[in-house]
């Protein structure tokens, strides 16, 4: 029973979504989707958010209690959480308030910093990938050099056909392999959805059977 009812709900919900995908009818597109589903999603996601916040708080409070390694940092979590909440609830989330100020001047620069690291990691990954240790890696290296050179003026100086060749690499072999993967992904998605609909796949219900 513990699994049967959720399973039935999922199967019923899945069938409705299948009908939604094939039918443009007002009942499904407007009544079900816009008037029923979307408001429920908005309402439910806020409660789920609460669950997330509770989980994070429990994890950090356990860390402090157990004096786990670097437990002092957990105080920063609570401090940031309280300050952000107060800023949002008291001052509002509009531009000009403390909440938005913190978002723009603390969170965004920190995110940008993390993102900027990507360039260095990419260089490192590229170095690893382009080491011509095997014939396949050599092909990869040559293709990469061609595509990269074609992006800069120097490439055209070397040969005016380089951009065309680069575009061909992107449009033909690259796109073909991408589409191959996408085809597999698409079929896999359908198969997984089908497994869920038929009750074969139950991992989302939490644990074993």
């Amino acid at each position, binding site marked *: 029973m513990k699994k049967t009812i959720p399973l039935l709900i999922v199967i019923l919900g899945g069938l409705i979504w299948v009908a939604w995908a094939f039918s443009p009818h007002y009942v499904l597109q407007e009544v079900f989707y816009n008037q029923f589903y979307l408001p429920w999603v908005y309402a439910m996601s806020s409660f789920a958010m609460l*669950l*997330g916040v509770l989980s994070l708080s429990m994890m950090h409070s356990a860390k402090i209690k157990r004096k786990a*390694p670097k437990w002092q940092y957990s105080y920063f979590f609570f401090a940031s959480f309280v300050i952000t909440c107060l800023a949002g609830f008291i001052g509002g989330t509009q531009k000009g308030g403390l909440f938005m100020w913190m978002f723009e001047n603390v969170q965004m620069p920190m995110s940008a910093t993390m993102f900027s690291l990507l360039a260095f990691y990419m260089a490192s990954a590229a170095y690893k990938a382009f080491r011509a240790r095997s014939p396949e890696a050599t092909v990869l290296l040559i293709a990469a050099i061609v595509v990269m050179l074609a992006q800069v003026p120097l490439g055209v100086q070397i040969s005016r056909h380089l951009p065309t060749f680069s575009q061909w690499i992107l449009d033909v072999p690259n796109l073909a392999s991408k589409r191959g993967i996408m085809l597999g*992904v698409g*079929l*896999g*998605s359908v*198969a997984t959805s089908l497994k869920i609909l038929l009750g074969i796949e139950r991992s989302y219900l939490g644990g074993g059977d």
Partner: protein
Amino acid sequence: MRLDKRRLIPILLAVFIFSVSLIMAQQHESKDDNIVGNFQVTDVPADDGTGLMLSWEPLDRSKRIIEYRIYRGITPDQLFFLESIQVNPKSPVVSDQMFYYDNSASEILDASFPGKLRLEKGQPDDGILYRRPPRDLKFTATLLEKYQMISLAERKQFYHRSREIVEEYDSSSDPVNSYAGLRSNQQTVLALLKPGETYYYTVVAVDERQRMLPHAPVTAGVPIPNAPEASPALYSVVMPDTGELRFEWEYPIYKDALVQYRILQVSDMPAQEWEERSQDPQAALANAREIASGQVAAGSLPNYTVVEVGEDIDSYKDAVFALQLFDYYGASSVSPISKPRVLNSDALPPRTDFYVEDKPNDKGDRLTVVWDNPIVFVVKVTALNADNSRLRINYQLNMTETQRVDDIWFDFYDPETGEHIEKIKEFYQDNAIVINLPDGYEFQKGLKVKITLTGEGLQGEDIPEDYVIEQDLRYEPAMITLVPSRALYRNDRDVSRVYNVVYRQYMHSPMWRLVMRNTSFDNSLDVVVPYSSMVQKLVHGISYTEGDSLVMYLNTPAGVERKTRALRPGDRKGAYALLDHTVDFTWDHDNQVMVRTSIFKDAARKMHEETVSAAEARLAELQELRAQSTDAAELEGIDAEIQRQEAILIAHTQNPIVDEAFKANSNRSRVKHVLSAFDDFMRRQAFKVVKTDARGLFVESEPEMINGELVYHMPISNWFDNNKYVTLFTTLLFCLIVVIFVQLAKRGKDLYIRPIAGLQEIDNAIGRATEMGRPMLYCMGNGSISDVATIASMGILGLVARRAAEYDTKLIVPCYDYIIMPIAQEIVREAHYAVGRPDTYDRNNVFYLTNVQFAYVAGVNGIMIRERMATNFFMGFFAAEALLMTETGNAVGAVQIAGTDAITQIPFFITTCDYTLIGEELYAASAYLNREPMLLGTLKAQDYFKFVILTVVIIGAVLSSFQITGLTLLMPEK
């Protein structure tokens, strides 16, 4: 010179005084500089007296202004935020003046407004600038006198949740006058300015630091009704062979207040003189003769008319005409004079034959008016080589969803010699063709293109063979390329300046209303017939309770009247906006009567009885009058009125729709019935198409009629999308293959699955972590629960968690999505229980981290470094964070196994991880590891279905190469 104490003190004093003066001067200067200059509030010209125009000089670019906030009030000491105009601080406002027109309905009460009166940020206690008006109807009541208010509410709020508010009761305690009351959180109240009232405004600039700079001086403005703007042009045609005068005119930009037009024959005079004289329409038209008149309805009614003058037509050949437009205040304006063109009826454009069809595959809110076969025309020409001998020609194909074009034939000719250059058959319409010009052809000569089509056109019939579209492609030196000329020839006739204007008529109104003017490049028009979801009603008043009294502010012709009465049992407490509770119910088409009802049951019953008894009483009165009257004209009038009253009586007493409403068990079901009947007639529309040159030569199409009755169309909500038959078929086929393989697997057939290294190594990776005594990390990516990759990842998590529990290895699962977290916790918990180790389960190891992408990366990287992970799993959907995490994992020396269906991240995983599951391998993992026959069956089915797809792709490619596109076209585009 030594700087001793004696000298230092005066110097410091001087510096101090200088600095203070400088700061003060700067402050003084900046205070003035920070106020917008020349702020003015003026009446909007040529409007109906509901608009004011605000203008000001924007601040200098150096001030880094990001927005100008406009405040409005009915007193100079309390102004509420009205609107914000955003500007780019990096680029200056181009014009010297900025404008804001306060001439449309603005929100004055909304659920998002503050609950109480709140000063604007940074305002002192005695400040005058406030945020939005409070969400308090008691406060809104104080504004009722100054604004025309309109309530906008969702249909269910008005019809099902509004409360009956009774103005007063009679001696027998029956309600005399009642309203539908809506609370502040059930509606948005919009406000329009009232003519003659005074309003106060100011503008505040806000800089990049979010500082509100000082406001401009509060300025008052009074909207005044003005004479309407004159029509820019009247076109007239005298048609001797038919004895008709034809008029067509243009409406001015602001036409909302226009109600009527008059066409007048005026004295001929120079245009300049007419312009001067027409400033005073009364004087200018003193001796004018009226030729025609009619309604305008804010410019939505036809802008043309025909006057039949018969044999007198010759006297109009030299006549001069003008158009007078009236607004609902009676003010008028006159157009420039029009001298008619004298043309016979053969100059008229051909009549447009059209039909209306339901738009297929929609939710029932669209109709298509079709008047032509598919239309193809060239939109762009691009040279593909240096000597311009190879050209790409982009074309546009306009057709309806029910029409079909098999092939388009493009014939190119030399425009000078007429020599045929090339013929191209476009069997697959991708909106582009490539043409190779012959050697030596002068590109600058241009090209002439003749386009013919094959396929299905109007009403499913074949496109006629003589249907030819021609266009000239001329050389444009400025663009150094060929461009299509404006002229579009259809069967040798230039149709580029002919328009097809679509009008519609609702069932309950005899008026034809403009839908859209279309060029001849369009062959159809999709008309939106929306489902009604909102109700818009005038606010008649506002009521609230005060102690034991009910206070009402009611709009009356004399102004807003305050009424109070004692609260009675059943009276609703709280504040309500008072709206008309009567609504349109059904249109009795046979009797041409609109039946109205109330949204409240008792009021509806009473209203019905009153209507019936009023009609009966009037009928009796008319019968009496008829018996006494002897005058034929009077008798005719009485008969017409009797007929009218009888129709009202029949519509209310012999109407099954009305009867059914009263039979409803509850008011809720009655109202549902009312809404259904209302939608039924409101969504039915008849159409006509007028073909015109917009200069007085127009021909109306025949509206669709059956037995002398107009045909009203209602869109149909479709249950199945016809474009998805193939998708449905393939899905069913796939299901069938899955079922077959699942059955085979169940019967014990050994299904071979190719080895996947990444999955085979999972056990080794877990073993490594156990041996090293270090934890493992399982990352499910940033996908949501609706992503298939996330669901597949959950399956793998269950298996990894089981092994981890068996070996007593710590597994950390930081979640990106708070909806996934409890599921992941449950999966890990179940795994621990399944292997008999519930004591080792720690729910704090499966936790929500954040759903901010790079904050998540920072968190995960921190955990990896602190905990010194032995093994990392990255399974799910990933974006830019993938490389940042796997590189860190690499740096801490963890064995990493990744799997994703995000194509852009697969290369990064391959580079930085030890093993990678590519695309579908991720989905296969659960089956592969479990070895369950059911799961293996689906996996095998996937492989076989891929073979089917590959076969179809190859066949499609081969057929397309032979110009057989049936199979290609069968495939859905999306």
